[in-house]
């Protein structure tokens, strides 16, 4: 991605040098870019969908979808919220880690672990269109 942006910036600079009108640089993306970004996102959603349905490799084999078909009752739209059982405000990824440690009886994941990001992408995609209600119980 970085490489492509650099090349484009260079070519735009070249156009400016020969005296043609200069486009606005900051908003320089087109439909092809949008499609590519959506594809990148959906690839991670699909990865998350696999992890959610038994792809985590946890020894006890319990999977997220056993309690949450189509990620229902995960409520990404309500986080961050006060999680009364933990006594503090938490983000969704912390609750995913709670599930990994308890029903799935396995190790928690680092906040920036691509697997944890993929799980959040899938969960949020399934809840698409629902109004944001941070803090809701």
């Amino acid at each position, binding site marked *: 991605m970085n490489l492509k942006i650099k090349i484009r910036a260079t070519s735009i600079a070249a156009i400016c040098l020969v005296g043609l009108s200069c486009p606005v640089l900051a908003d320089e993306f087109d439909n092809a870019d949008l499609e590519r970004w959506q594809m990148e996102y959906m690839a991670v959603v699909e990865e998350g969908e696999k992890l959610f349905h038994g792809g985590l490799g946890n020894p006890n084999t319990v999977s997220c979808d056993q309690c949450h*078909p189509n990620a229902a*009752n995960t409520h990404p739209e309500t986080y961050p919220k006060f999680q009364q*059982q933990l006594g503090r405000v938490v983000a969704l990824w912390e609750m995913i880690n709670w599930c990994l440690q308890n029903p799935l009886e396995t190790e928690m994941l680092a906040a920036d672990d691509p697997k944890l990001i993929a799980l959040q992408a899938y969960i949020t995609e399934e809840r698409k269109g629902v109004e944001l209600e941070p803090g809701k119980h």
Partner: protein
Amino acid sequence: MSRTSRRELLRHGGALLAASSLPLSVVEVAYGQGSEQNFTFAYISDSHITQVKGNEFVRNWDRGLIRAVAETNLLDPKPDFIFYGGDIAQLGKPAEIDHGLEILAGLSGDVHYVMGEHDYYVDLGDYWRKQLGPDHYSFDHKGVHFVVLNSILTHEAWMHQKWETGMQRMKQMARLDNPSGQPFMVGEAQRNWLRKDLRKVKKETPIVVLSHSPLQKIYKGWNFWTDDAEQVQALLQPFGKVTVLYGHVHQIQTNQIGNISFHAAMATAWPWPYPATYRQQNSYLPKLTVEMNRADPFFERDATGWQFIDMHSGRTDVSYLLPDNANRVVAFDESVGHPVDQTDYAEAGRKSPLQHY
């Protein structure tokens, strides 16, 4: 004893039972003077016993079934028998079915079994039938005709296509939200059997039908659904008093269609969300349902449960024993002609743990 005070006793007794785990009298049997005898039976469902490896099984699911068995044994008076509503196993493995049956062997009383899809699709029910006998049958008890159906069959062509292994087919069916999932059905052969079976039953005889999937259509995406539900219902409608009890949905559901009352069983393993909480699809949860409390996963047994059924005058009152929640009684109300949740939450007055979204 009046009906109301008996219900008070049921509710109160159930709560005490869960809290103290001490045996006590929960049902006054000497009730009513109808021609039918009154009796109770217990109803346990959906344990999803899961083998990790060897003789190691998922602890949480084991615990649910062990507790249900223990509490059922404490019921006093003793239920006449126990129904098991299906999904003993998670992947239908003989080791899982055996482990589940070993725990269920602790029940004092006869158990009648219903086939679940998790018991069936690895070997099309061979091991289950070897251990437990036929998957559809009927019997009479104290003037009530009981029928058990295997409602989790699907299209023959799909079942018998060339699978690499039976486990591959099982895993397709085990995934509730499988986008290429197949609809459940009773099928023509069993419907013909049922038609014949009912020929010998008088129209005023109360009938109780047990199936794993709901014999009504609620949400196809998760198979809260039986494809030929209407055809089965049509065979049952000529009878005055019919109750259908089903598992699979892992949640409280209540309905009345014509003469047929419907009640779902809680699971001993884990609860499932109500289909309406999945916003991308429409579902048809019966209006009579007062939804179970939203689960608190931090309590391992929360939103799981087991039931005992009080049969009187051919009607069924279902008592839900709910660990970590107030117990529920859903009883047939003759004045309105359908089952009514005795906790009687008015729509507006429902407390927030009942609001699913």
